[in-house]
Every structure is written in structure tokens, then in C-alpha cells.
């Protein structure tokens, strides 16, 4: 704990951390299962030699579930890097609007912590961080940092575990068997998009009224 958090009383600090952990539990469920599927897909469908490494790197570098799912098909087809850039721009454009909510709340946060918070501003983190209202900005910051760190570690854990399990099974099983049993799993990405789309349409209709 650095000097900033020393201003938060130890008792409150513990309460904040406990609340962050409790709030991250539903995300733990979602991120590990979805991350596992994303890792399995990357390892089984993208035709990579070191899938666990890439699963770890992709999930750690761009903390974005949609990215991990959307990248599988283009990587399998080895599309050009510009197409990948365009695709990422398309799917992650929405993040540009998340920051607007956080502008005022993260004012005065030290640079590196702010960079970390921006790095981890994924859908679930955003939803929880936007909903959290501690009176003291320090407690707020502590909550955001703890929550982000926990959530992204769940996601990285999930994707890496998925890719590793496929890599381990590949040695023991016929790759055809794995392919047959993961057939249809790619629907998870479509379902994710459909759910996001449904939410957005509902939000739009609510605003229109």
C-alpha cells in the first residue's frame, strides 16, 4: 500500500477490498468459463503451435473478451494484419465511450495507476466501477484497482487454462477427436455478441422513450 492508500483507514481499506472481492465473484464465474472456452477455441481452431502462450498474451495485452473470441477465425485464415486492426477497431470501438463516464471519477489519479485502469476498462469492470460510489476518492480508487486486478487475472487464468488443456489433450487424443468435440463451441462468440447487441438495443429503446 502506498502513501495514497495510507490515507484510507485500515478498517475501511479492508472493507473496500472485501467488497471488491465479493463484487468480483460473479465475474469470476463468467470470466473463467468464457475465458476457458476462448482458450479452447484458440488452441483447437486457430491452428497455432504454441496456443497457450498466445492465449496468455492476447488476453493479457487486450483485456477484451470479444477480442479473444473474434480473433480465432481471422487467425485461422491468417488474414492480413490490417484486417485484424480494422476488426479490433470495430469490436472495441465501444470502449471509447466507457472512458467518458470515468473521466471525472479518475481525475487526479497518479499516471501509472490511471494507465492500468484504462488498460483494464473492460465491459464488466466498467459496469462495476461505474456503479460503485465511495465518498472518498481514495477508497474509490482502491476499489477500482483491486477489482480490475482481480477480474483480469480471472480472464487470463481462464484463457490460458483452456488453451493448456487442449494442448495437453492433443498429446493424448487424436486431434480429430478434439475437433469433433469442440465443434459448435464457436457459437459462444456469436452468443456473446447477440447478448451485447440485445442489451444495447434495449438501452437504446429505453433512452428513446
Amino acid at each position, binding site marked *: 500500500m502506498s502513501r495514497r492508500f495510507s490515507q484510507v483507514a485500515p478498517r475501511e481499506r479492508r472493507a473496500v477490498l472485501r467488497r471488491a472481492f465479493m463484487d468480483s465473484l460473479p465475474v469470476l464465474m463468467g470470466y473463467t468459463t468464457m475465458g476457458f472456452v476462448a482458450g479452447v477455441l484458440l488452441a483447437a481452431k486457430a491452428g497455432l503451435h504454441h496456443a497457450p502462450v498466445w492465449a496468455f498474451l492476447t488476453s493479457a495485452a487486450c483485456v477484451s473478451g470479444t477480442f479473444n473470441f473474434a480473433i480465432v477465425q481471422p487467425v485461422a485464415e491468417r488474414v492480413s494484419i490490417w484486417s485484424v486492426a480494422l476488426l479490433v477497431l470495430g469490436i472495441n470501438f465501444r470502449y471509447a465511450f466507457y*472512458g467518458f463516464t470515468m473521466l471525472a471519477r479518475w481525475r487526479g489519479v497518479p499516471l501509472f495507476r490511471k494507465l492500468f485502469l484504462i488498460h483494464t476498462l473492460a465491459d464488466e469492470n466498467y459496469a462495476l466501477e461505474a456503479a460503485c460510489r465511495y465518498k472518498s476518492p481514495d477508497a474509490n480508487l482502491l476499489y477500482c484497482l483491486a477489482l480490475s486486478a482481480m477480474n483480469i487475472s480471472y480472464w487470463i487464468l481462464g484463457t490460458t487454462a483452456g488453451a493448456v488443456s487442449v494442448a495437453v489433450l492433443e498429446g493424448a487424443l487424436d486431434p480429430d477427436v478434439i475437433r469433433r*468435440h469442440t465443434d*459448435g463451441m464457436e457459437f459462444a462468440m456469436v452468443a456473446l455478441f447477440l447478448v451485447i447487441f440485445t442489451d444495447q438495443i434495449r438501452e437504446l429503446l429505453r433512452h428513446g422513450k
Partner: protein
Amino acid sequence: MENEFLYMSAVVAVGWAVTYAMRALPFVLFSGRGGKSLPPAVERFGNLISPVIIACLVVYSYSGLQWRTAWPYLAGAITVGLHLWKGNPLASIVAGTALYMCLVSCGCQTAPDEVTYDKAHPLLRFSSRGLQFRGEFVSARKAVDLLEKNRVPKDSVIYILVDPDYDYVHDRTMWKFQHYYLGSAGYRRTMLVHERRAEAAAAPERHAGRAAGTVEPPPPAQDVRRRGPEGAGRGR
């Protein structure tokens, strides 16, 4: 291997850079404004553009599914319905995916028809317009998938019909297809068949009354000179 390393490093770098840039954009643009709210036009644009983008993504990702069958649409309807009803994203995604996996793998698929893949009936055809599997344009990945789906044995020779106008000396796509896609899937024996040859091989069978399904009509006479060496396998 190194290719994969370079390509995936680039994917990770690009993915990180673009995602981070998107997330940091408001902080860069409006850092001076402090707590003031957004211009309403920006807010409206933001509300409108993201559903459009996600809709495009849905359409794109359907192309990776078995979109000619009804199953992805059924599973999609169930997913959306469940989400509207219960509002639990994880439950809807898991249920929809499980349903789709069942539908696809539990025999709800049209059985693959018998395919012949001898020299007279090559399954694959390369022309300057791209790769065809039984007369249909497909991606390289899809072609390999189709070979596997049609249970073409891995040790059989894969004949590839080469269109006379396909410039395989300068165009590397076919080489990449053979060595990267077919090779990594386990199809290591390929043979290039030039149109004229396939025609000749098919001719006796045609007299015997069998339909030569995938063989193209003979090339026009002026194209004969542009043909490559006859029936060469890749000797690399």
C-alpha cells in the same frame, strides 16, 4: 513456426494498440474539461454506433458457423429470448452454445454425400479467381474443413485441378494452400492436374456413362500455349 511467431506478435501488438487507444481516447480528448459532460452529439453518436458495429459482428461471425442450416438461427433465437427473459448474460451464452453444439453434433446435420476424389474428379480447383471446392468458391481453411467433413482419407492423393489462366509461378496462394493448410491438416500428398489432362482422363468414363461432375469444359484453343508443364507434382 517463425511465421506464426511474427504473425501472432503482430496480432497481439495491433490488438493491444487499438484497444488501448480506444480506451484512452476520452482521457486524451477531454482531459482538460474535467467533470464537464460530453457534447450531446457525441453521446448520441456513441449510443447509435455501437449496436450497428455489434450487428455487423454478428453477421460476420455467423459466416464461421454452419449458416446454411437452421441451427445457428435457432440457437441464436434461444440465446436472445433467454437473455430478454432472464437477463443473465452468462446463462444465455452457455445455454445457447450448448444447444448449438448438440444440434450440430447430434446428427442434426445433413449426412455428407459420397464424394469421389480420383484424378478424373478433383475436388479442388485453383483459378485466378480463387479456390473452389466442387465448383464453389471457398477459403483455404474451409476447403480443408470440407475435405475432413467428407472423410477424405489423410493418406490419399489430393488432386487439384489448375485452371489454365492460373499463374502458379508468381501467385503463391496455391503453394501456401498446399504446404500450410493441407500439410498441417495431414494431407501431405497433393498432385496438380491441368485441365486438359483431367479432361482426357475423364473421357473414357464419360463414354461408360458416368457423369463427370467437377470437371470443367475444355479450355479454349488459344489458351493451350499458356498451360504449364503437364501434371507436375510439386517437387519441392
